[in-house]
Structures are given as structure tokens and as C-alpha cells.
């Protein structure tokens, strides 16, 4: 994906995502999920519990929990998941998507200039992440997760106010899965 990009000398060591970084805030989003054209909705709740830990909980509109994940630094724990979703592929996909969303800092490996963006490449295990920082607004507008050859997941942040993204869209390119998030107005 980087073949037409202009590489620049790396000046930044760390790239940050502050959208879920305030432990005083309850992050509450209305979610719409489209998986293989099966549509369902719910409420996504993210809370930074302390320096290293995040809870990520998804409930139906009626409040029933569908899953409850705990991220402790690099460790991941499934506190709860309903039987219908408790499949390895689903859990791994959700775990990775939300990890991408809540990870606050990543070490920069390479840096590029792409149109209106400064792009920072960071590494996962077998995958890489590209953070797109808007040159004008200095906001993080996009994260792209790739394998060696393919764009796997694209996260778009829009309607950004300070350190809050009011709309977030997570799209998968290799499986038919889209997640749309819209922040509750009063939280």
C-alpha cells in the first residue's frame, strides 16, 4: 500500500490515539453492525479503568450484555460473551478491532506524506497499522490495519471535537463486516 507514497525521515517516535484515553469519561456509542448483510444494533460502552486497562462492553438496546471484554495492557480477557457469538473467528475479530480502537500509543517505524495527511506506520505482530494524521486539523482521521499484502481493516474517525470522535466507522475488507458508531449526545 505504500508504494506510491513519499517517505520522509522519521521525526516522531510515538503516534497517539486519544479518543478513549480519558478515564473520567464514560464512552457510550450507539452501534449498528452489518455482518454478511445481517443487521443488528446495540450500545457500545468503552471505559478506561486505569492507566493500562480498558473495559469494552456491548449490549442490546434493552441492556442485555452480548459481550464484555477486558484489555489489561497486552493481555485480553473475555469476561462474558453470549453463546451465539462465542466462536473463535468472531471473538478474534472483535478483540482485534476494539484493540485497534483503544490502543493509545504505538511506536513509529516509518513516516510518509500522503496528500493532506502525515502517515505513520507502526507494527503489530504480522500486521502493520497506518495512522493518518490530518495536516491541517492535526486530528487522527483514520487507522488502516494491513497484512503484508492487503488492507484488512479501516477505522474512520469523523465529527471530531477535541479528543472525542462523535462518529466512528470500522470496515473490514476481507470479511463482510461493518461497524458504525455514533456517540450518545449527553455523555
Amino acid at each position, binding site marked *: 500500500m505504500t508504494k506510491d507514497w513519499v517517505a520522509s525521515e522519521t521525526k516522531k517516535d510515538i503516534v497517539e490515539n486519544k479518543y478513549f484515553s480519558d478515564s*473520567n*469519561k*464514560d464512552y*457510550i456509542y*450507539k452501534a*449498528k453492525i452489518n455482518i454478511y448483510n445481517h*443487521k*443488528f*444494533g446495540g*450500545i457500545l*460502552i468503552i*471505559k478506561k*479503568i486505569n492507566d493500562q486497562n480498558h*473495559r469494552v*462492553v456491548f*449490549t442490546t*438496546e*434493552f*441492556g*442485555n*450484555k452480548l459481550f*464484555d471484554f477486558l484489555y489489561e495492557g497486552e493481555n485480553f480477557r473475555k*469476561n*462474558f460473551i*453470549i453463546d451465539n457469538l462465542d466462536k473463535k473467528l468472531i471473538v478474534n475479530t472483535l478483540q482485534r478491532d476494539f484493540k485497534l480502537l483503544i490502543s493509545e500509543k504505538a511506536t513509529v517505524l516509518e513516516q510518509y506524506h500522503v496528500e493532506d495527511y502525515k502517515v505513520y506506520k507502526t507494527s503489530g505482530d504480522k500486521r502493520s497499522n497506518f495512522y493518518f494524521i490530518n495536516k491541517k486539523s492535526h486530528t487522527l482521521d483514520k487507522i488502516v490495519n494491513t497484512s503484508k499484502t492487503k488492507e484488512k481493516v479501516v477505522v474512520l474517525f469523523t465529527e471530531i471535537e477535541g479528543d472525542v470522535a462523535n462518529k466512528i466507522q470500522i470496515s473490514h475488507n476481507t470479511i463482510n463486516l461493518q461497524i458504525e458508531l*455514533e456517540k*450518545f*449526545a*449527553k*455523555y
Partner: protein
Amino acid sequence: MRNYIFILFLLIVSIGVQAQETEMNTSEITAFKVQIKEVSKSTTTIIAEFVQYKHLDFLTSDIETSGNMAFKAPNWVKWEYTSPYEYSVVFKDDLLLINDGGTKSNIKMGSSKLFKKLNELIINSVTGNMFDDGGFEVSYFKTPDFNKVIFISTDKKMAKMIAVFELHFNKNDGAVIEVKMIEPSQDYTRIVFSNRVVNSEINDEIFTN
């Protein structure tokens, strides 16, 4: 000094209120069940407003959503959330009709035992007629302000999702005023009803989505 006396007074009052929740005796339980059955039988429609509080122990405040509910006997129900988002579900015969802010979908309840059970529970919670359901261990309490029934799930699948249902009933008219669903983790969802109107004309068109 005055403040201390006032706080002391509040403490005494609140302890007093808590202490006044007592278990019903056998004849009280019988009378209460008769009241609820009568109410349930004579209820053809209900409309009410509701506020839902989702409590998760790690959050700073409960998540508040609200809207309107409509019921038409024997088994049509519409839940409509209007704040902070638009979302409605109609339980109608064997179908679940969902309108998620304009995105519409249908689910056949026949395909899911859990949805069927959910529908039953919703209707029974709204009408208060949960006592004949085999899947619960039931106990009865009274307070000066309302009657309270606790349903402990004995069905394993249900208990994994909701361990305890707690219903509060208006003492005078037997109406359900609050439903609390407690998860095994002790997190809960609390739904509080208000402006309840019984047996008014409700157009069937409300139950479309």
C-alpha cells in the same frame, strides 16, 4: 448543628424505609396474585412512558435511554426508544420488527427460543402475569409504597444472561411500575414506567415498523 440534626433525621428515615420491606405471608400472596390476575385479565391495552437505566459497575453514571411502550392484548408489544436515539421493536405474533433509526429488519421468533422467551417475559412483565412461568423461583415482598416480586431464573440458559427479575407493583391498581433485570455479574437494567394509560383505543397501525 442544624445540618447534623437534619442528616441524622434523614438517616433515621432512610433506615426506617429499608426496614419496612417485609416478606408477604401466605394469605397476602394469595390476595396479591388474585389482584394481578384480575388486572391482567381486564387489561386490553397499555401505553406508558419509560426510562431505562443501564448500570455497569465500572461506569461513572448509569446509561439513560427513554421512550414509549404500547401493549395490545393478547401479545402485541411495541418498545420505542426516542432518546438519545430512535429505535423501535414490535413484537407481533411470531415476528420481531426492528427499526433502527431507519434501518429496518425482521426476525422470526420461531427461529429462536430465546426471542420467544424474551417476548413472553416482556408481555408478562408489562402485565405482571409472570407467576405461572415455570422457569423461576418466586418470592413476594411488600413495602409501604409498593409490592415487590423477585423471580430467580432456574433455567440455566436464562440464568446466564439474567439471574434475577425484580418487579415493582402499584399497591392500589396492580400496575407494574418498575422492572429490574439483574445479571450474574450484578450489573443490571432498570426500567421505570410513568404516565401509564390502560384500556385506551390503540390503532393497530402502531404495531407496524
